[in-house]
């Protein structure tokens, strides 16, 4: 054998030796996450939820007699990197399914070749757009409309406020939500008298708040996650506008508490039950849902000390437990069989929500999971209004 051929062979052997030796004893699940970039806030929690679920499944003996293994890669919140990491997990890690984060564009960019490979995708994001891709994707994200409607319903049923102002950021999530907010207001008898924007790194919102107040709004519907809401709360306090209600977006627990410390019950927000009930699981009335929440919160508190946000991580936990259940039901890790088994799981009461996937329903959360909450004086979350069916 010539020197050239030998070198090529040696390089190939070196490259292939990097594959996991125990691949036959484990079932590998891949996850494309925006651990850096604009998605880092949410996707970090998604990863934590997945890891907790993997540990829980493996502690009970795994699936089909094999341990589950999670491989995750940072897509840097961009579609280009998402394509690379999805391909990497398919070719190098031999994943049998994906359970990926909330970067919609990244998941969309990869959907075509993941679909061709017949691998199911469980997503924190919305579904890809093409019908053939949707057959392989399952969304664990509450439809954005629910978040808007929960706030509008509260205003309609519990207050006399009928004029509102919107204050939103230009993120993908924000843009989508703003359009829904503009379209839905009328059906709740609300009038939008101001429609203001901000950038996520703005350090003052006094001008926008002033315009909303001058337009006669009784409440600000804030659209956008992150700590901008704390600045808005401080601006409201500084401007002395103590009758202008602030209805924020869903957010991190710590951010909610910081904004709540400034405004008290003047600041309300939609939250899933699991986020409010983290300190007292008995708040959950339904025994099945309470048991599911307890199973998740116990390891969460043990690992993170109970200070971690539970909203996102709980749905990641649910998605992985449901995937494990589907693999168990399919008795194989083959993509088509797992997908079909998943569609037949039926209603599933999870820690984060109740899911109703089927062959024709690939958006699992069909009932509004949000209640309206506030921050108490001792810095805990409490229910203000629960309009869930």
């Amino acid at each position: 054998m010539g020197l050239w051929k030998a070198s090529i062979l040696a390089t190939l052997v070196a490259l292939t030796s990097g594959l996991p030796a125990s691949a036959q004893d484990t079932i590998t699940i891949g996850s494309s996450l925006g651990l850096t970039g604009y998605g880092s806030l949410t996707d970090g929690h998604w990863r934590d939820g997945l890891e907790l679920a993997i540990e829980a499944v493996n502690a009970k003996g795994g699936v089909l007699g094999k341990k589950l293994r999670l491989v995750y890669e940072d897509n840097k919140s961009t579609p280009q990197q998402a394509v690379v990491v999805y391909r990497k997990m398919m070719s190098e890690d031999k994943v049998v399914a994906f359970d990926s984060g909330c970067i919609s564009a990244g998941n969309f960019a990869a959907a075509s070749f993941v679909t061709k490979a017949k691998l199911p995708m469980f997503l924190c994001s919305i579904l890809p757009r093409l019908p053939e891709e949707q057959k392989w994707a399952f969304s664990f994200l509450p439809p954005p409309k629910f978040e808007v409607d929960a706030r509008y319903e509260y205003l309609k049923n519990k207050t006399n406020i009928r004029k509102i102002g919107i204050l939103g950021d230009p993120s993908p999530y924000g843009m989508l939500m703003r359009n829904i907010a503009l379209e839905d207001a009328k059906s709740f008898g609300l009038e939008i008298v101001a429609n203001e924007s901000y950038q996520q790194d703005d350090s003052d919102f006094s001008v926008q708040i002033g315009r909303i107040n001058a337009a006669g709004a009784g409440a600000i519907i804030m659209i956008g996650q992150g700590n901008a809401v704390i600045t808005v709360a401080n601006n409201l306090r500084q401007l002395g506008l103590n009758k202008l209600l602030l209805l924020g977006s869903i957010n991190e627990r710590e951010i909610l508490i910081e904004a709540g410390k400034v405004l008290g019950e003047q600041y309300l927000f939609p939250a899933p039950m699991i986020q409010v009930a983290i300190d007292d699981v008995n708040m959950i009335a339904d025994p099945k849902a309470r048991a599911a929440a307890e199973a998740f919160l116990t390891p969460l508190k043990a690992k993170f000390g109970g200070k971690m946000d539970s909203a996102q991580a709980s749905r990641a936990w649910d998605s992985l437990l449901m995937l494990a259940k589907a693999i168990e039901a399919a008795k194989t890790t083959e993509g088509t069989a797992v997908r079909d088994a998943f569609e037949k799981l039926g209603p599933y009461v999870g820690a984060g929500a109740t899911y109703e996937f089927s062959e024709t329903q690939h958006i699992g959360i069909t009932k509004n999971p949000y209640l309206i909450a506030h921050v108490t004086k001792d810095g805990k979350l409490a229910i203000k209004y629960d309009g869930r069916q």
Partner: protein
Amino acid sequence: MTLRVSISTRLGSYGTFAAISAVGIALLFALVFIQGGYLLTVMQLAMIYGVFCVGLNFFMGYTGQASFGQNAFAAIGGYGTAILCVQFGWEPVAALVASMAIASVASLVVGYPTLRLRGHYLAMATFALGLITYDLSVQWTSLTQGYMGYAGIPPLGIGRFVVEDERLKLVCLMAILLFSLWLSGRLRNSRFGRALRAISTSEAGAAALGIRISQYKLAAFVIAAVYASAAGSLFAHTVGFISPEVFGLQMVVVTFTMLYVGGVGTVLGPAIGAIIASLLPEIVRGAGRFQDIAYALALLVLLIYLPKGLSTLADLGKRRPAEQGGGN
């Protein structure tokens, strides 16, 4: 020894470097081609960025001007090809060429007033161009579908011949990059290229030689835009999906890195930079959550020891003029 001297004499140090680079890149391709897997995707993206950088090099390298807004023309290429193929059922190649034509007209219209600016002002104006295009791609949802993006863009192909196989995609993209490089090399050493390089050295001097500065700058800007548009279209056909994030600020940062790592103003630099800067993150992937730090450190080392880029490796062996001249 005699053979080495003979090769060096025939090719010159740059020629030797080009030959070594070509052999190195060919070996790398062979390895990726045989191994397959996700490195095929990494190399496909490297080829696409390479085309973009070869174009950018016309304006920034040969002409010595600053542009932070070439992503605008990549967006025109990407969205142009996506809309023409998905909405109107055009053939991918026809859509790619039409998008390049649209980008060239757009660059003419934008470049004519903008290129009257110089230095930092030109950089700011081109940066604004990129930001405006990004905002348009987000806000003009009836045309671009906003953040939801365009899916289902067909792969490259002519008639019944469709490039769906990942290896074949890489071969096609490599051929396109090689053609781009060949064109760049030919133009660099032409009368036109010499005029651009004269502008880069001294605008006043070039003007004194009778070079119409504004026309040549505009021509370089249009060429860079056409290359960027082609890269945008190639991305769309290779990945099958585009959204505003693809053509955002990150594209500017990534392509600048590639250009400077490879060697701005050289013929091969943009391609070498694109390949190295694409492969580096994969080489340091094992660093896990420290991957970005490892990547940045590697880039830092490269730029400290090779400030003019990897393509100047050829000059390392050269003796300095003072040493050569023995003090004369």
